[in-house]
């Protein structure tokens, strides 16, 4: 499957805590407006490739506390049509993988609602290959076993452009699940 996805900014009004919802109430546009997605399933598992424009790559923010590391995450619902924008629920958790530009290995992630994402070491064989050139990130996830995706065949993803102070719920996401 190969497609181009128009991304959205999740509504800041739903962000937990109280500060982001008001301080960032004027943020309605995603930092990344669209991304190319290519998904392949084989006997070896899943390969998911993302490609998006990023005028400035941030892989190290040590000297600039206002910048954040670029990143991207794939999620699949463990139960078909689990809430996507609000990141699942305790009864309908999401499973996924998180890449950050300063790390060689991805994290395995799970979520049961906004602000609940937990990171863990990725299973053996989960790898990412990232390349930044000509203002574009090209990122490929190789996931030999991604049970949630295999079961529900629904996928969503998020992209963070650190140069635009994107982090946490300030991100660019697919508007809903993409049915494979």
């Amino acid at each position, binding site marked *: 499957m190969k497609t181009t996805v128009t991304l959205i900014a999740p509504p800041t009004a739903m962000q937990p*805590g109280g*500060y982001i919802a008001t301080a960032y109430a004027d943020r309605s546009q995603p930092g990344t407006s669209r991304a190319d997605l290519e998904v392949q399933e084989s006997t070896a598992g899943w390969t998911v490739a993302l490609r998006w424009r990023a005028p400035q790559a941030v892989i190290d923010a040590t*000297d600039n506390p206002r910048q954040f590391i670029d990143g991207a995450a794939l999620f699949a619902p463990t139960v078909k049509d689990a809430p996507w924008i609000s990141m699942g629920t305790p009864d309908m958790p999401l499973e996924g993988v998180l890449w950050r530009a300063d790390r060689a290995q991805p994290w395995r992630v799970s979520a049961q609602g906004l602000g609940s994402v937990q990171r863990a070491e990725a299973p053996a064989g989960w790898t990412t290959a990232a390349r930044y050139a000509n203002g574009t990130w090209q990122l490929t996830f190789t996931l030999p076993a991604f049970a949630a995706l295999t079961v529900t065949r629904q996928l969503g993803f998020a992209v963070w452009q650190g140069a635009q102070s994107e982090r946490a719920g300030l991100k660019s996401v697919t508007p809903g699940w993409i049915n494979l």
Partner: protein
Amino acid sequence: MGFSMVIDLNKCIGCQTCTVACKRQWTSNEGQEATWFNHVETKPGRGWPRDFHDMTPPAGVYAQQGLKGRIPMLAESGGRWQFDLESLKPGRYDPQKPLAPKTAEKGNAPDWGPNWEEDEGGGVFPNSYFFYLPRLCNHCEEPACKKACPRNAITKRDDGIVLVDEPNCRGYRFCVEACPYKKLYFNPQLGISQKCIMCFPRVEKGLPPACVGSCAGRARHFGLLEDPESPTHRLVKKFGIALPLYAEKGTQPNVFYVPPFSATGFNADGTPNGQQRIPMDYLKELFGEEVEQVMATLNAERAKKARGEPSEIMDELIRYTFNEAWKLPAEEEFGKHV
């Protein structure tokens, strides 16, 4: 309510013993070069980080739509200072090149830092003035940092101490952005935010925070704000002579200050005019309108003492016995709080 601190600005001598005690105890690791849970700055001045007061909207960062706080740039903190300590070794020391900091990020001489404006006064000679303002996390009743964290990784304990749950922190820095006092710090080595922990491991064992216990001027008082036997309760609630900094930010700090007196000013002909050199308007900027009444109370109590009359307030501030500057619950009591 919970633990609170009162700092008597008339007794702070700017020695930074508190700063060093804190730094040695908590923030001397890599990634914490620009982290000072406690520092003392000179007023009037732009403070640290530079112009921190202007980095959040005056009415409270979460009170108004679209008004964000600002994360200080490293340059506004003066950068991550590093020293070539090897140059001090025998045979390498060059008196023409005294030990001086360079920033880790640019290798240049810093142009700002904690208490960069040391002893720089305001006013016009001979009516110049300055005073010291120690600053640390205010462990606010309504912590802006806590409301800013989308992961709920900042907690306010039942005893009032505000902590970052470091394993749960992802380094998003909304807390740094939202804090009006800029007393949260991003640790780039660990990828998390860190802040003053009010020395809770010491406090739980009946010891005062390091900054309190090390204060050479006996300027700091510590205890539970609601405990009538606590020195902070007496100074804030009973006597009403200690005020929070920038109360208009709306976070209800639990660190309070006894406002400073200054030497008498002079008339143009050189005769003393009996007026405080620190302008009342400036004190109001820092501590609000109430400071005028507090200064009047302090003046009256000082006058009593000068006349040889008893003054409960001045005795409290003089602090004849240092160990009475803090009152802590017994160690076994802590299980009930945390």
